[in-house]
């Protein structure tokens, strides 16, 4: 498998990255090398092997459904690039 510059552009777009052409070229070349290296995994027979997502097995911990203190609004909004008194502001989405 090898990755083309247009595929890199497409995937970057999915991740909301907008790379200039010269960066795309370098990125495609580097990713191609990396993905070629990943091909070594195909030498491993994994037929019937269950995947591991976490090395320490845990069940989902539950707690009582009760009100607890949480971050107050002013603290939560303190880092906002743009805000008003009570919420985060973003560019208009619906015209």
């Amino acid at each position, binding site marked *: 498998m090898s990755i083309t510059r247009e595929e890199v552009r497409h995937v970057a777009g999915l991740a*909301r990255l*907008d*790379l200039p052409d010269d*960066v795309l070229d370098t990125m495609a070349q580097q990713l191609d090398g990396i993905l070629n290296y*990943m091909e070594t995994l195909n030498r491993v027979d994994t037929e019937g092997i269950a995947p*591991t997502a976490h090395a320490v097995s*845990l069940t989902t911990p539950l707690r009582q459904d009760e009100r607890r203190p949480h*971050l107050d609004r002013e*603290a939560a909004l303190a880092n906002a*690039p743009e805000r008003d008194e009570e919420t985060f502001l973003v560019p208009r989405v619906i015209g």
Partner: protein
Amino acid sequence: MNLYDLTIEDAHQQLIRGEVSAVALTRAVLARIEAVEPRIQAYLTLDPEGALEQAAAADRRLAAGEATPLTGIPLGIKDVICTRDMRTTCGSRLLENFVPPYEAAVMERLKAAGAVILGKLNMDEFAMGSSTENSAYQITRNPWHLDHIPGGSSGGSAAAVAAGMCLGALGSDTGGSIRQPASHCGVVGLKPTYGRVSRYGLVAFASSLDQIGPMAKSVRDCALLLNTISGHDERDSTSVPQPVPDYATLAGNGFQGLRVGLPREYHQAEGLDPDVRQAMAAAIDTVRNLGAETVEVSLPHTAYAVAAYYIIAPCEASSNLARYDGVRFGVRSQDHADMPDMFRRTRTRGFGAEVQRRIILGTYALSAGYYDAYYGKASQVRSLIVDDFRRAFETCDVLLSPVAPTPAFKIGEKTDDPLTMYMSDVFTLSANLAGIPGISVPCGLSSGGLPIGLQIMGPHFSEDRLLAAAFHFEQQTDFHRQKPEL
């Protein structure tokens, strides 16, 4: 001896005997920072005033006879751990102005113990890297040789400890990011078992691999830090509710009677530097003299660990880093046409090249049509790696290996070749895939005068065994007492 050269253990003794005050100790470390920081560049944020206030509070606590082993001890914190009211950048431009509104669990614990927080330490952006060269802010230099990298991603933490710019530090380790810089800077660094230390307030890179751990000048100091930061926290759903033993007792006979496995695939690896090879041979002699029985073992899937890791970690990262959209925090790009454009400009300008590379790699590996071939396959290989360790620990108590294939390389040497950089993590990242603990302890100097580290790995929750073994090794050698000349 200079106050800044003290171990945490010795500083604590002087503090409780009243031979030195926490304020005087903190001033001495701040003066040391002023003297050597221009050459080392380990700190991203320094808070002298806050540190002196905390030191004054520590002195009151010491006077009241209510001190813990960390009361009044000046520490540095890797800038990936949220500190309330203290800027936390993760080495990224995107978080240049981020001041966390809450404290990470480990910070709550350190502050409750009365530790003095000096500031935040440099790192590869979002902990992605092996040299700290991926920081958006500065190049941190190896205190032993200023032309060399300190390792990464916790390079600032390792360099600061080695240079006497803090008595101990916290780092984080996703694929070796505590152990490898500890090895390169000649300090002790421990990656705990996954789930031992709460990740609440640790900015996420790869959530199934990340773990916070201590870095310090001695094994006992690491144990003291681990005592304080370990334990169950219900705010981290992967935190394990297992009791925390007193690690600092370093109980037991260390290597005496221990079965020590020497993984063939590590010791016979291609590209193992001759100086590292020689230091390993000497370390093996030392542990035998300490009464260990060494056995050769095999971790047969080692050759696939780098590939599996560099699929899994970027996949998790691509998902975790989706939160940086310029809406709730971080630096928002201003000249945007609409909201998607705002996301794109914010992320394209805010993230550095390595972070972008890993986001794209992870997004690609998770995308339709490729998921099974990459993420699915890597997760299966991860199972085989987990099984390799399980089998090895049937025949031995701990595993002994190098931390890194070479001593610290030169600044700029690998920056153009990401794959070569990834390969330098070959001996450390399997422990993260398997969730097991590992410690790096100094075991020699290269012919070029750069430190070499010995890695001891053990089964889940064997930190007490690793620390006791490392302690006995440390007592038998004097590498941890050697200091860089600055």
